[in-house]
């Protein structure tokens, strides 16, 4: 999309992504035909990406409060109380569309953007996580995307010096033309030093800091609000380019300035750049804002007002400062060799007025820009009926199935990925990737630990979106619980297809309903998040293919005493106890897909009361020292979980289950929810008795020891063999 000024009319508005009705509303607000720049401002502010016009109605149904929530949705990131006067500030955000077009920069700038959302609130970032979905691994383009995305995440996160401590990866052909890159940042601040974005103080200077503005990323927000077609790759110039070195300087400079009393309000320039930051800051503060674009640091000559207002150049922040503190601020940014420019002032006009080269390029009343933004209650259709589970037979046997499952793309070792992310920088990583169900990061100079995870099972969400949404929340809660931490809150990243299609809207609403139920049942409110719609690609035949519904959940929990956390590695001896009820749910299981080649049946039932009861019991038993290692039972079921514990700890287990009362494959590979494997010293009888007292199903599964996982049949599968099967997938795919 060129920046050349063109005649403004309805046709141009449609090119900018506005509907005819939306354009008419713009004309009515303005009382005249908007200027080219004004139309640009409206189109990005009213894009799906910035306005949440299709999702807002439903997002409001999610629980967002709890006694420990300091700031819920509406700020740059969510803020929760983690004790000792400290707050965790965190959010997850998607960079899906850019990552398909230009995987390295798309993923890298995704990390950069979410970091800024967190440090703009005054937090030093302490951890990054991500949730990635890729297409069929057999497709060459998938390999390129995996390679670029992993390099991009590492390239940015490693350089800024924030450890990447966790994440999840799935492969499915539904993501062939539309991978998902969801990046999460967690930061820590003092509760009395949290910075917000609402501008205040008529006459106060508006200050631009960071990198210069270039022509990159113009209309990125609009691009993210439309489905792809076969020409998507031609949009490469709309992808922003990141510079993690500048981001690192920006973090340090902002934190240094935040230690003074100079800042009134601050916000990063993310999607829709200078437009969204200035409009949102002024709008939230109920003031007007005058911008002088001649003062904006520019990377190239001849940029128009439209280009500067819509540029998504990276590593930039907008601040409102106290007028007598600008010299202090300028000195700090000059020390860090970053641009610093006063580009405007706050006014009492209630308008955003943009001047450039002596001309008023835009003059828009802020209230109607925000309040009359479109909001849609899009029609919902019927959910697609689930294909029945069908007959079950076991063609390969338990041992062979295990080897195949732990080597399959969704369960194979992710070490190839983790090993490209610096997970230890900062010196506070207590549990690294693969060491526990959630990563554990200590807060420097305190005893506090944060437990962090990202979770979603898209195939469940596709089959039954409501229970799939609940399951994503429950699994995040369970992963935090399995370390001994108390789950506090979530950030969500709702990735769906085209909301204008009734069946997609139905998925979206059902998934949110399920999430809301789980968040309420588990006291696990949503404090921040992001919605990414239009994740569809139109093939050459004109048929648009949607991704699987993917409401990724980023969970955060806290340990008052981080030394009490447990990992998942099998200890040297003792017993393995299964907590939770096993019905042998094979619908939508990995076993069903990998062994019988089917994606059929209902997703496993999510019993939130049982989830809560079982999890609260497990956490208590970890904190009182009874459980010494713990792993939740999820994808692949019990036997995969046992094998993962054995591989992580280097110790095996002799499984002793006289009669499970069901088909062996259903018992060993079924994916019933609300279950944990707990390693205890001794014979496990005490834990089973305690569980019975708490109304929690529990049984001893076997004795820990040896260098194999030994099945009740007597078949012993060595840890070495498991590791070989588990390790092969990524290196074979990527380094061959």
């Amino acid at each position: 999309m060129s920046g050349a000024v063109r005649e403004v009319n309805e046709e141009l508005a449609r090119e900018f992504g506005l509907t005819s009705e939306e354009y008419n509303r713009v004309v009515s607000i303005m009382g005249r035909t908007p200027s080219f720049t004004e139309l640009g401002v409206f189109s990005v502010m009213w894009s799906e990406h910035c306005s949440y016009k299709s999702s807002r109605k439903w997002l409001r149904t999610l629980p967002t409060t709890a006694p420990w929530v300091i700031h819920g949705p509406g700020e740059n990131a969510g803020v929760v109380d983690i004790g000792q006067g400290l707050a965790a500030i965190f959010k997850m955000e998607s960079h899906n569309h850019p990552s398909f077009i230009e995987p390295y920069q798309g993923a890298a700038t995704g990390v950069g953007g979410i970091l800024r959302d967190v440090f703009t609130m005054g937090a030093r970032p302490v951890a990054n996580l991500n949730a990635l979905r890729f297409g069929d691994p057999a497709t060459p383009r998938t390999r390129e995307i995996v390679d670029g995305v992993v390099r991009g995440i590492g390239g940015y996160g490693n350089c800024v010096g924030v450890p990447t401590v966790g994440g999840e990866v799935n492969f499915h052909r539904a993501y062939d033309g539309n991978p998902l890159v969801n990046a999460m940042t967690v930061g820590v601040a003092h509760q009395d030093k949290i910075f917000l974005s609402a501008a205040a103080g008529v006459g106060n200077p508006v200050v631009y800091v960071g990198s210069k503005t270039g022509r990159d990323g113009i209309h990125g927000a609009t691009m993210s609000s439309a489905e792809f077609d076969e020409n998507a790759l031609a949009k490469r110039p709309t992808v922003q380019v990141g510079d993690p070195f500048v981001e690192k300087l920006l973090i340090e400079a902002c934190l240094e300035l935040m230690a003074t009393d100079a800042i009134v309000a601050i916000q990063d320039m993310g999607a829709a750049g200078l437009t969204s930051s200035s409009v949102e800051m002024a709008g939230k503060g109920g003031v007007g804002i005058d911008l002088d674009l001649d003062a904006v640091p520019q990377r190239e000559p001849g940029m128009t007002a439209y280009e500067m207002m819509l540029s998504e150049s990276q590593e930039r922040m907008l601040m409102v400062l106290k007028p007598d503190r600008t010299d202090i601020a300028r000195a700090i940014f000059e020390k860090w060799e970053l641009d610093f420019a006063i580009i405007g002032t706050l006014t009492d006009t209630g308008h955003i007025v943009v001047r450039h080269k002596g001309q008023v390029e835009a003059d828009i009343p802020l209230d109607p820009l925000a309040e009359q933004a479109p909001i849609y209650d899009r029609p919902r259709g019927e959910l697609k009926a689930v294909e029945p589970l069908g007959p079950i037979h076991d063609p390969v046997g338990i041992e062979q199935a295990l080897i195949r499952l732990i080597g399959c793309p969704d369960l194979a070792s992710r070490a190839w990925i983790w090993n490209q992310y610096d997970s230890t920088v900062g010196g506070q990583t207590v549990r690294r990737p693969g060491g526990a169900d959630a990563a554990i990061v200590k807060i420097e100079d305190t005893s506090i630990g944060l437990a962090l995870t990202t979770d979603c099972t898209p195939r469940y969400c596709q089959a039954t979106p409501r229970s799939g949404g609940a399951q994503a929340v429950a699994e995040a809660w369970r992963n935090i619980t399995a370390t001994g931490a108390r789950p506090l809150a979530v950030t969500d990243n709702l990735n769906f297809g085209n909301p204008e299609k009734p069946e997609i809207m139905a998925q979206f609403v059902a998934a949110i309903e399920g999430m809301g139920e789980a968040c309420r049942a588990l006291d696990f409110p949503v404090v921040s998040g992001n919605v990414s719609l239009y994740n569809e690609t139109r093939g050459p035949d004109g048929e648009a293919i949607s991704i699987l519904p993917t409401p990724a959940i980023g969970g955060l929990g806290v340990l008052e005493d981080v030394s009490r956390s447990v990992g998942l590695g099998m200890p040297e001896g003792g017993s393995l106890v299964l907590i939770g009820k096993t019905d042998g749910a094979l619908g939508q299981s990995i076993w069903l897909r990998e062994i019988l080649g089917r994606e059929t049946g209902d997703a496993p039932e999510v019993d939130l009361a049982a989830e809560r009861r079982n999890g609260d019991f497990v956490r208590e038993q970890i904190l009182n020292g009874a459980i010494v290692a713990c792993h939740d039972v999820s994808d692949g079921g019990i036997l995969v979980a046992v094998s993962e514990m054995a591989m992580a700890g280097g110790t095996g287990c002799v499984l002793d289950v006289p009669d499970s009362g069901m088909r062996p494959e259903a018992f060993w590979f079924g994916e019933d929810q609300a279950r944990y494997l707990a390693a205890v010293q001794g014979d496990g009888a005490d834990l089973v008795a305690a569980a019975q007292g708490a109304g929690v199903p529990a049984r001893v599964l076997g004795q820990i020891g040896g260098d194999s996982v030994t099945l009740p049949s007597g078949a012993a599968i060595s840890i070495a063999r498991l590791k070989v099967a588990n390790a092969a997938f990524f290196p074979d795919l990527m380094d061959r």
Partner: protein
Amino acid sequence: MKAGIVVFPGTNRERDMAIALRSVTGTAPVMLWHGETSLPDLDLIVLPGGFSYGDYLRCGAMAAHSPIMREIRTFAARGGHILGVCNGFQILTETGLLPGALLRNAGLRFLSQDCWLRVEEAGTPFTRNWKKGDVFRTPLAHGDGNYVADVTTVDRLEGEGLIAFRYSDAKGVVDVADRLSNPNGSMNAIAGVLSENRRICGMMPHPEDLVDPLMGGVDGRPLFEGLVEALVQ
């Protein structure tokens, strides 16, 4: 021990290093800004890890020309002790205070993992708490850690006992061609080298990230404890 940590734009492991030094000395080291043109009285200068100047041009190349490096050269010439870790090692080679260079990892990917180091030269201020042949674990995290030098230089380093650490397996077996034990493909599996006077040490892995049992071990502590013993008169 009075220690100073140099902070360049893009340095990112200065806090890790400060934690490690504080844990053995009980006092916080001073942070030295790259633009400084004089140094306080110090027993040890540490060049920590990170991406000084974004690794632009070449890792460590721009930092080597920053104002503080003039002072550090003088400090070295007077027999001062310097530890360079990761990017700090790269800066020391770019400055010429240590021989050789660090190239892109042999696998052309950033590596973040634990490795095993075998102590090759005991009795230096950096290695005095180990015996020759001891093996310890330490995290590494770099994209450019593949040590090279010309054959004459390597022969000299080997002959004069200036190899501090070599990558090995957990049992101390060194196999240069084995990418599991010598992950970045370094020449002779060299992980750390010493200056001729043995008062400057550069190494790629991060002993400072393994000084607390909570983080998975204390394998890195002997290095810092040894420095304190050696440098506190």
